């Protein structure tokens, strides 16, 4: 993908951001060049809870997170593991501050998160369904 196409995609995303519907399905996406077609819920839990940070073909994954208390992040973890973000943070603080796991890559908003996934074949993240572009591949749909 050329830089121009990437820039147009990001501009389109920025336009869409304001019209993201409340409670619309969240989707887990990867780079379209990633050979993984779909993931199970337990594989997603392993990935985002730092238990086994790899795709089913054992290629290493780079989970991309939204910063802080982003509404989509709160909704994602409630749907995925049924936990409030405070408990997810408590769980991750165990992994991070013992040095057991590398922390995820953090992004300030959905646009930056999508741009990172488009640029990294190993990246995986979650976005509202309306932000999917042809450069992303959906591997799981939550709260359908």
């Amino acid at each position, binding site marked *: 993908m050329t830089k121009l196409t990437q820039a147009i995609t990001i501009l389109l995303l920025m336009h869409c951001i304001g019209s993201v519907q409340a409670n619309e399905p969240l989707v887990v996406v990867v780079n379209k060049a990633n050979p993984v077609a779909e993931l199970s819920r337990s594989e997603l*839990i392993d990935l985002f809870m730092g238990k*086994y940070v790899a795709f089913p073909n054992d*290629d290493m994954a780079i989970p991309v997170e939204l910063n802080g208390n982003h509404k989509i992040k709160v909704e994602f973890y409630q749907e995925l593991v049924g936990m*409030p973000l405070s*408990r997810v943070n408590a769980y991750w*603080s*165990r992994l991070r501050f*013992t*040095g*057991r796991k590398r922390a995820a890559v953090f992004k300030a908003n959905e646009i930056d998160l999508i741009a990172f996934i488009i640029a990294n074949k190993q990246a995986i993240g979650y976005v509202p369904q309306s932000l999917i572009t042809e450069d992303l591949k959906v591997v799981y749909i939550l709260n359908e």
Partner: protein
Amino acid sequence: MFLVQYKNLSCLLLLLFASYVTANETENDNFQFSGFATLGAVYTDSDHHGYRKNVGSDGAVYSGEVDFKQHSLLGLQADWSISSGFDAVYQGVLRDLPEPSLDRYTTLAFLRYKVNANWSMRFGRTAPDLFLLTEYRDVDFSYIWATAPNEVYGIIPFRSIDGADITYSQRGYGGIFKTKLFAGSSEGEITGSSFVEKVKIKDIIGVSFSYDHFNWIIHAKHTQVTIDNEPQANTLLIEAITQVPDFLWPNSKVFAESLLMTGEEVNYSSLSGQYQWQNWLASAEWSHIASDSEVIPKITSGYTALSYQLNAHQFYGIYAFTESDNYVFDEPGVNEEVLEELIHGINGVMNFYAANQQTISLGWRWDITNSLASSLQWNYTKLEEEGSTLWLNESDHNEAENINTFFLTLSMIF
């Protein structure tokens, strides 16, 4: 002393501040700065047994005092992702220490090589994986309780291991199997009412197994270490015993040699499990310390805990215990009347590691925000005679006592 501590503290803060500035300026995904902190207040009602977080603390809390030193700390961490396979981590934890130094404040400093999804290796300073919580017992935000049960964790003075570890992870049967092997050496302090002993261990070899099925997890750990130095109290006692003439104590030299700790093995074992269903969380751990040394008794400890979550609030109860044999001097042919003071000293050293107590705890954790929590906990401890190692005694008062201790902590991550 104060100047040295100030200098070490300044160096650590400067190093971490430089990391923070670098991370912010570069806005680089490869460099992250984070931390954790606890502001903790402790109140207890004992005049004789001073509460302390672990045996490495030379300060304690007595009746009528409100202490902020035992549980307050600040942890700062820098993570540097060097490449897809390599990353480095540095962590410093500022807290009240008996022998403060940059070395003691540094809890993590390692280079990791992630070979693939299954294998990873770390070289440098890592957290000790002796029991379930020993790696993260100071990260108070990470667990529900105001503090990890002293019965199991109060006896461990080590905060890090210098060496290497290798971890193998594998998916299977709907969960993740993990095996970790680690090796290295470590140092810590053990304090009494009037002394601070440096404790060195070497030839640490440990293995840790876990099976994680998300809502339930089991761990089994075993570590073997060799004591690498002779505590000063031991050395003085051995010298005193060897000077006793034969007519007062035949074969006193044989007994004195049996007190030597250097080169003796100590084994740490732990089995633990956790199960979560709906709003309930149950956990339990059994741990055991066994040694070839005559001075260290067999110590069996454990706890079981249950918590219930109601929105941002968690209510919990814990029962914890620790048991060990008490030594009573019973050597044949010894003139105990003449050597009364020496025998008193022998009993003191031989029972130094003897911990015998049970605690019931009730608590409430409130997640004020997603990264800030407060915990209020009441401990009711039934302390047995000659079993108060986990507490600090200002006098020879070693009698049984029932003690109430209250904790109020504010913990956060950032």
